[in-house]
């Protein structure tokens, strides 16, 4: 019988590792719209991490702000300025 704490923290560790990949893609992506989408994926995984770390009140605030408002505002900014990052 596996300890339930190990299962829960294992899923949290998996979410943390996937969020590293999402952050890497968000930072190195040239197309800014796709970078915003990767950033939203990273925020979703962080919300799951907060839920596992026993902070459901943070999740209730964090999901509308970081998955809804941040990408919306930055997408409006991108539509008014430049869509590509020239390196």
């Amino acid at each position, binding site marked *: 019988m596996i*300890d339930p704490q190990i299962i829960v*923290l294992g899923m949290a560790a998996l979410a943390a590792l996937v969020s590293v990949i999402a952050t890497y893609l968000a930072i190195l992506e040239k197309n*800014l719209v796709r970078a915003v989408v990767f950033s939203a994926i*990273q925020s979703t995984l962080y919300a799951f991490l907060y839920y596992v*770390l026993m*902070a459901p009140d943070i999740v209730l605030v964090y999901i509308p702000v970081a998955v809804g408002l941040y990408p919306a505002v930055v997408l409006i900014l991108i539509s008014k300025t430049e869509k590509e990052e*020239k390196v």
Partner: protein
Amino acid sequence: MIDLVDYFLTLIVTAMIVNLGLALYGIFFRPSMIKKIIALTILGDTANTFAIILGYRRWPSPKTPSRPPVLVNYTDATPDTLKEFVGRAVDPLPQALVLTAIVIGLAVTLFMVFLTLQIYRAYGTTDMRKIKKLKG
């Protein structure tokens, strides 16, 4: 025999440190101001996650999970239920600070967005290398 709970918590902290490094790289070495804003939000979220991990408590025993710091039925709270609650709930102070920090971070991000928009209207670019060379 390694403790798997220790291992997973170390894995989470290590992933957060890597995210912190990636976000700092994005802020310092990426030329686009929009990319800097995205990296700044990731940096703030990662710092908040460190605060939440600081307040996390392991399960008191394998059968009793730790609890969110919310007292559900406070009307008929006896000293015994309060003692049980204090023994199982995680630390509420970092969560209160993080709740404030998320809202402040939203305000800071909106300020940066309008700053970038004004810079684009004045100079016609969001590339920091070009803005750096402009005079006046």
